[in-house]
């Protein structure tokens, strides 16, 4: 993929990421490397100048974001990822917007996962604390029951205990066969659970390998994982 914002310069340069069924792929890299941009590109939120995006082998490069949702992609962006004026419950309902079936079961699961959300289900999401919002955002994406789940820094600002739960849950989701692509700055933990890791530097693939390989690579450790 090669692309950038509007008429601006290219931010991604021939960058490739892939994730298979049941796998967790983690993208790490310095700030401004283009990780979020790559996610947005995969989701069709900016025009690619080169390259393609494929889902289940099918070329979806020209689909609009909402068609991608219909095709089973779920995405939690890094910033402004909740509906602040809607209640927590309505946020979750909106996650299930494209679902026509009964989603109360999924909702119950999510409340199990993030009990605090159940407590605050009728409160506008804008009144939640930073970490609570993050939980709403992830919950919203899970409501879609997506075929692919994309998370941009899902654990930024959540407390260790919730982070652990979140990772646990992500693993569980992956086990059900859903591929997960996530960007993480809590890289060490993320790579520990990752099947695949990508290190992105200035919009290019710098290192690629399994989570373990990257964790053990001294160069990667020093430059991106904080020693």
């Amino acid at each position, binding site marked *: 993929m090669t692309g950038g914002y509007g008429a601006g310069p290219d931010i991604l340069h021939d960058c490739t990421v892939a994730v298979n069924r049941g796998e967790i792929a983690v993208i790490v890299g310095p700030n401004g490397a283009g990780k979020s941009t790559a996610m947005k590109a995969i989701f069709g939120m900016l025009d690619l100048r080169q390259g393609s995006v494929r889902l289940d082998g099918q070329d979806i490069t020209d689909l609009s974001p909402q068609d991608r949702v219909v095709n089973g992609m779920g995405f939690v962006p890094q910033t402004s990822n909740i509906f602040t004026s809607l209640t927590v419950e309505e946020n979750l309902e909106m996650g299930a917007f494209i679902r026509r079936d009964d989603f109360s079961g999924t909702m119950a699961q999510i409340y199990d996962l993030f009990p605090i959300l159940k407590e605050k289900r009728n409160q506008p999401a804008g009144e939640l604390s930073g*970490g609570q919002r993050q939980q709403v955002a992830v919950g919203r994406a899970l409501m879609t029951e997506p075929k692919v789940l994309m998370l941009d820094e899902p654990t930024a600002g959540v407390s260790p205990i*919730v982070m652990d739960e979140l990772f646990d849950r992500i693993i569980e989701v992956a086990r059900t066969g859903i591929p997960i692509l996530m960007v993480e700055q809590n890289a060490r933990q993320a790579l*520990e659970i990752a099947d695949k890791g990508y290190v992105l530097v200035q919009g290019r693939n710098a290192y690629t390998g399994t989570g373990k390989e990257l964790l053990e690579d001294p160069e990667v450790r020093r430059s991106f994982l904080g020693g």
Partner: protein
Amino acid sequence: MIVVEDLHKHFGGFHAVDGASLEISGGSITGLIGPNGAGKTTLFNVIAGVLEPTSGRVTMDGEDITGLPPHDLFHKGLLRTFQIAHEFSSMTCRENLMMVPGGQSGETLWNTWFGRKRIADEERALAAKADEVLEFLTIEHLADHKAGQVSGGQKKLLELGRTMMVDARIVFLDEVGAGVNRTLLNTIGDAIVRLNKERGYTFVVIEHDMDFIGRLCDPVICMAEGKVLAEGTLDEIKANEQVIEAYLGTGLKNKAAAGAG
């Protein structure tokens, strides 16, 4: 240096801060941890004058600063960063930094018409200083970028950079680390320590990354449900049952399985 006495902040019926009392001693780097929604950010907001407290008192070096507007507190040397980055989006990164110092003569209208020479000199010095800070934060190449169009982490860096533009006495950092690359975070940690040692800044740091807290902070305060739950060195805190239950947890359940898969 800062003493918070029985502070309450209620939103409707909800008690976000519920009788917190704590003391931050001058020259320390105090860590503030606690589960999501414990009231840490709200506590910051009350101390920094963004929110009126429902009741309680905040003093700084004995002087009552409860309810003073943020800009007054700034001039008393109290600075803060925001958990959700508050950049000036239509200004360049350099301008974001240059606007910080108070008392610039060019901020008086009269001088903009009749004191242009002095302004020009001041501006040069400011720009140099801003570039220094940007370089330190490894984002010097973004000096002329609009701050609204840099990445999430870069915004956080800018947020921190602003506190480095002036001589602060106490700086409140609200999760500067969230979303910042760990390598860079270490550099930031070094900088905090250096500012603390060399310039005598006092820091209060909210952070969920225990490694980071561990490297910098002593003492550490843990909040929960609007109250102070525990206080002490990080090791003491880490050993505290209540803290483990409410906040730290016991690690991944699925870790082993994942590693295998």
